[in-house]
Structure formats: C-alpha cells, structure tokens
C-alpha cells in the first residue's frame, strides 16, 4: 500500500501519533472528502523489545516488569507469565494463592473496561461520560493500592503464588466498591448506552460478520459480539475458573454498539465472579517460597488466557537456567489494530474512524510490546 503518491481529489490525513484520539499509534488515511478509501497502519511507536529483554532477567525480575507489556490490564500479563513457567515446572500453588490471583485479575478486567468506556466517550465528544467513568475507575485503583502497594503497576504475582496476602481491610473495601459500581452501572445504562447520540454514533458502524471475524483473527469481546460463543475461561479453563459460575455474553450484530454492550455486561459478570470468590476464600498459605535464582527444568509451554482485550498467550521455552530461553507473547491488540482496523475502516467516514478504533479496544503498548 503506497499512500504517498498524490492523486487528484484525494488527501492524506494522518491519524496520530500526536492526536487527542489515537493513543500512541499512527495511521495514514487516504481520504476523498469525508470518505476513507484506505488506511495504512504504522505501528511501532511503543516497541521496547520486551521479548528479547526478558531473556536476560531471572523470573522474579521478569514478573515485576512484565505488567508493562499491557498497561491497561497488567494482571493478565503477570498471570500468563507465571502460569506458563509453573506449567513447565509442574509447580502446585496453594488454593488461597489461586483465589487471590483470580480476584485481582477480574478486578483488573473491570478496570480495563472502565478505562475503555472513558476513552470511547472522549473520542465521541462525550466529555461527561469520560470524566465520570474515570472518576469511578479510581475506586478500583484504590483497591489495587490497598492490596499491592501500587495503583497501575501492581508487581503482585510471582512464580509460586502472590507476593503479599490480602487483609480484611481489602475484603471490606472491595465489597463496598463493588456495590458502588453496580449502582453506577445502571447510571451508565441510561446515560451512555441508551443515549441517543451514542447509539447514533456506534450503531451499524464497523460491522463484522462471524466469518470475517474469524478470518481476521478477532478474539475477546470483538468476536463474541458477532455471535460466536468462545471464551477461554469456559472452553479451556485455568486456575479456579471451573469453580465459579458466570455467563458468556454474546450479541449478534457485530457492530460497534454490540461490542460496547458486550463489554458493559462483562463488567457485571466480573463483579459477580469476584463476589463468589470472596465468599469462598480458603485460608492457608498463599505462596510457595522459591529462591531468586530458581530455574525451571528444560521444556516449553503455551498458556492461553482471556485478558480484557481478547486471547493472550505466552509461549515460554526454558533451558534449565534461571533466565528463560525465549518468551513469545501473542498479544490480542496486534491483530485488532493491524488486520481488523484497516478492513473495517474502508468505506467509512472520517468521523467513524475513532469510533471503530476504540470500539475494538486495542492498547498500543500491547500491540508493540
């Protein structure tokens, strides 16, 4: 695709990276009037060489740094890395450790979806919903702070369990925060999701059929909004997911509005999962103590999990030394931005581009690693 040649009647509009709506992602749009003919994505502004740098660090160091690989949903990265290593070594984690891990992971999913509501509203010009959603997100950041000591980068999981126990104060604050969020969800229903202008901007925009979604590699809520019932937490469950009951949200239309509704109902499901886990929290140890230079035996493993964006997989190869030999992260945002976004952007208008991009919920840090 060579958009640089000038044709009469067409102009090249840059979308980012210094742009209020694009995050750290650059795309060139070939535009005629208001109609977009082609979109050429230029990723790579946040490439830090994660996978190579992880080969030079031992496991505790990697667990502390890997949550920068997806800044909006850090628990999923830590969960993926630790579970992949434990799968190679065949380590058994105490039950309390597993429960705490999934409580924090589901709270991280709620956090990611609240951030997403705020950003999608901001790019649609809906300033009020942005400010209110980010204000409510502060409740979960406070919960992160109580449990782990940091708001956005928790550095909480380690190979063998979790690094700190959760206190009774955390359990009380979590119940209060979940009650508050459930009340706010009914507010978001009538203020955002049933707001006439929001529906006008997102209905029938960026429509994908089920076959197109599978061909383009969509996962997560983008796939479930096209009618396909695929959720790794139900189909290939890991950690304590076999013990909790929840619904998988699917919708049929496949447009941006359906994706938004999928995520909104997923917040409600996550709240119910956290409540079930908090009620049945077992006592006991939460960690298997390991030395910092503990080495996994030789082998490789491929571990898939459902992050807030979609299917995230870690392929780890270990050669018996304290540092992993190779780590490969399959990031969901890579396919969302680089294959779905150009396909859906063809034939839409400039005003639809931010709506499509953010309804696919891609994180530039996750895309580039």
């Amino acid at each position: 695709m060579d958009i640089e040649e000038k044709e009469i009647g067409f102009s090249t509009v840059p979308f980012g990276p210094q742009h209020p709506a694009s995050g750290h992602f650059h795309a060139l749009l070939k535009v005629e009037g208001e109609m977009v003919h082609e979109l050429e994505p230029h990723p790579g502004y946040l490439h830090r060489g994660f996978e190579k740098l992880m080969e030079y660090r031992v496991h505790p160091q990697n667990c502390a740094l890997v949550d920068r690989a997806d800044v909006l949903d850090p628990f999923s990265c830590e969960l993926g890395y630790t579970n992949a290593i434990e799968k190679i070594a065949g380590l058994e984690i105490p039950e309390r450790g597993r429960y705490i891990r999934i409580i924090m992971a589901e709270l991280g999913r709620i956090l990611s979806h609240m951030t997403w509501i705020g950003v999608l509203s901001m790019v649609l010009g809906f300033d009020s919903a942005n400010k209110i959603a980010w204000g409510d997100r502060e409740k979960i950041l406070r919960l992160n702070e109580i449990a782990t000591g940091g708001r956005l980068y928790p550095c909480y999981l380690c190979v063998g369990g979790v690094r700190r126990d959760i206190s009774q104060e955390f359990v009380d604050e979590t119940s209060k925060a979940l009650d508050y969020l459930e009340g706010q969800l009914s507010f978001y229903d009538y203020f955002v999701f049933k707001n006439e202008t929001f529906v006008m901007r997102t209905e029938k925009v960026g429509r994908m059929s089920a076959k197109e979604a599978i061909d383009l590699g969509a996962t997560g809520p983008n796939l479930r909004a096209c009618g396909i019932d695929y959720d790794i937490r139900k189909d290939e469950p890991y950690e304590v997911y076999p013990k909790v009951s929840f619904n998988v949200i699917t919708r049929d239309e496949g447009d941006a509005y359906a994706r938004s509704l999928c995520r909104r109902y997923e917040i409600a499901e996550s709240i119910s999962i956290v409540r079930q886990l908090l009620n049945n929290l077992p006592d006991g140890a939460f960690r298997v103590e390991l030395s910092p230079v503990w080495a996994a035996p030789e082998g490789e493993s491929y571990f898939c999990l459902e992050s807030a964006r979609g299917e995230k997989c870690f392929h780890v190869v270990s050669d018996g030394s304290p540092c992993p030999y190779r780590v490969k992260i399959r990031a969901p945002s890579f396919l969302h931005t680089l294959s779905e976004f150009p396909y859906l952007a063809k034939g839409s208008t400039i005003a639809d581009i931010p709506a499509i991009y953010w309804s696919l919920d891609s994180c530039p840090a996750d895309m580039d690693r």
Partner: protein
Amino acid sequence: MRKMGYLSDKFSRTFTPFGILRNLFRKPMTLQFPYETLPPLEGYRGRHALDLEKCAGCFICSMICPNKAIWPVEFKGRKYPQVHLGKCCWCQLCEEYCPNKAIKLTPHSMMVTMDKESAILGLGEEGFVPRHQ
C-alpha cells in the same frame, strides 16, 4: 407499528441522559490536592529507607534489581547500597530478598525535584537522606 416503537425508543433515549442533572445536588468527586488527600497506606511502594545497623553489605538488593538502580558507595570504611530513584521501577524486590530486612520501601511518595543529583539517594547520618533537603 414497529416504526412507532422505534420512534418512541428514540424519543425516550433523547430525554433520559438529562438524569445527569442529579450530579448538581451531590458533592463533587474531586479531592483538592494539598488540602484533602486520601490517607497514605502502609504497604504503598514509595521512597526507600535503609537501616545502617542491619545492612550486611551483601548486595543481594543490587543483584536482584531489574533495572540495575542500586550500586555500592563507600561510607565509614564499609560499602552500602545507594539507590537511583530515576531508574527504580518500584517493584520491592530489594526489600523482599534482603536477608536482614535492612532496606525498605516507605509510603513516602512526594518526590518531586528540579535537581537530578537529589534523585540519587545518597547516605547521611540516618540511612538514606537526599543530598539536597
């Protein structure tokens, strides 16, 4: 008939967002910073503190630090660790693996300075004291 349902949906969706007017009667969510803050928590990962009596000079903290932000400095005839706050990623691994629990992360988080030198936690009489107070 379906058209009437669709139109009445559109109509009600145009008026329900005005429910935001209820926010005029509630207190704002903002905490105005220097006057009102959330109480600091004990486990928060903030600035480091070193207990000179307990430190054995083993430098496990320096070896485990993922960003190589800790390195040795000479003080009263022995070597002690020194932390560069600009490189630190606040992961608390140094506290976790210190055998004598000499280096700790305190909840102090207001670390703003215009001077690069003071980002290095040097040594004074009582453990870590920034060079320019």
